[in-house]
């Protein structure tokens, strides 16, 4: 493992020659050794991926950290959570991704392909858009959250409801659909404020932040 948690808002990652870390621009706090930071607009996907991500609105300014040393990362006083991906796929919003290893393939996924029309509605309602970023492969990534991160397991028959604003990421075989609980009270502005919930069912894990604040 090359990622270490220093405190709730700071991590340290090792960069070795021949390896690349993709990180959010401006997230570097300090480093030892010889590390260089190069802005990249193609990310880990090449030019085609770049255009795809631009179109999908999942384009977040990234930079590459290369060289030989240890780099400390933190961003805007947000909490940082480390996630190890072991051959499965992590679905996450691009702007929540702070650092990830180049052993992970970054992709862009159309929400409609997971959950059909409801997935698209979900993207609209949560303000996450119609696309989401995926990370596949083996490696570590560091995820930003406002407040601490809670990992909630989902099992068949035990689906979970999540506030769309508190949702960060999910992994595994999960179906997500938006549950609209809109009544006449919401229409006249006397709703509970919890009209929309994200329902996730299947087998996997959901990551939720302890805040309703979007990044």
């Amino acid at each position, binding site marked *: 493992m090359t990622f270490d948690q*220093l*405190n*709730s*808002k*700071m991590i340290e990652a090792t960069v070795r020659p021949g390896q690349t870390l993709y990180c959010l*621009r*401006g*997230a*570097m*706090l*300090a*480093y*030892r050794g010889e590390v*260089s*930071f*190069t*802005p*990249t*607009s193609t990310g880990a996907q090449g030019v085609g991926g770049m255009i795809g991500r631009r179109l999908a609105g999942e384009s977040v*300014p990234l*930079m590459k950290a290369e060289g030989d040393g240890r780099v*400390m990362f*933190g*961003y*805007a*006083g*947000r909490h940082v959570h480390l996630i190890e991906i072991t051959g499965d796929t992590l679905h996450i919003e691009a702007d929540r991704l702070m650092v990830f290893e180049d052993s992970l393939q970054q992709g862009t996924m159309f929400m409609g392909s997971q959950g059909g029309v409801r997935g698209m509605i979900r993207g609209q309602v949560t303000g996450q858009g119609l696309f989401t970023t995926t990370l596949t492969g083996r490696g570590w990534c560091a995820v930003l959250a406002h407040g601490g991160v809670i990992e909630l397991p989902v099992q068949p028959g035990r689906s979970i409801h999540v506030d769309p604003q508190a949702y960060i990421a999910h992994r595994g075989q999960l179906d997500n659909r938006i549950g609209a609980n809109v009544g006449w009270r919401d229409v006249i502005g006397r709703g509970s404020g919890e009209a929309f919930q994200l329902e996730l069912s299947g087998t996997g894990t959901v990551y939720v932040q302890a805040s309703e604040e979007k990044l």
Partner: protein
Amino acid sequence: MSGLGSGATVYDARSLPQDDNVNPYSFCVALDGEWFVQKGKMIAYYGRIKFEALGVGALDRLVTANFNSPLYIQDWIVAQGKGQLLLADRGFDVNSYDLEVGNLTIRAANLLAFQPGLDLKQSIVPGFVTLIGTGKFVAASNGAVHFVEPPIRVDPEALLGWADCPTPCHHFDTKYMRGALGMARRLTGLGGASGEEHQYDFVGTGTVLMQSSEISIDPNLIPAQTAQQNQPPGAQNIPGLPNLPGRLGRLLQ
């Protein structure tokens, strides 16, 4: 006293922590005498405490002895008396540190209070002040403080301060601006900058203090700082001439 989960702890003048953190975001000074406090950082106090602006005559003795920075004198007051003084800064993490015949340089906006046993002087790095001597001081940071040892390069915004090691130098890394692609990048502006071209480079032995975020506490609180203003009065920037302080600088104008 109630513990976690049973509501907020209720403190009074006797049960308040003495010279210690009340919670991660506020600090209680057991005042008996004088402390220097940054303006606006007092949130409450018990006892008889007077707050006086610096440089108003009665405190000139203290100022000449301990507060050696005309640049920051407007931002500081002296708390005098006996009681419990609570300090906080907009929900940022607050910590206290002890110096023993030591020196520590810290970002001026992050320093909340210090004992008169310490001397405050302006650092030659703009926006920073140096504390010299023995005593306690209280500082705020955006996220927890992390201590590291040189050699290390730190983002200027994430740097909180340093102790015992030589003053840092600038490190610029624009390697990606070289070559044909770099030239295209420079000319067209395409590709942008990583925002990490500039660091403070620390070498030698000592301790470097970092905060967990690259958003510094309040850039507005740092008085308009340019190299020019950080010079002693009289020195001006003359194109083509090195900056010379004081009389020599004036002669060259």
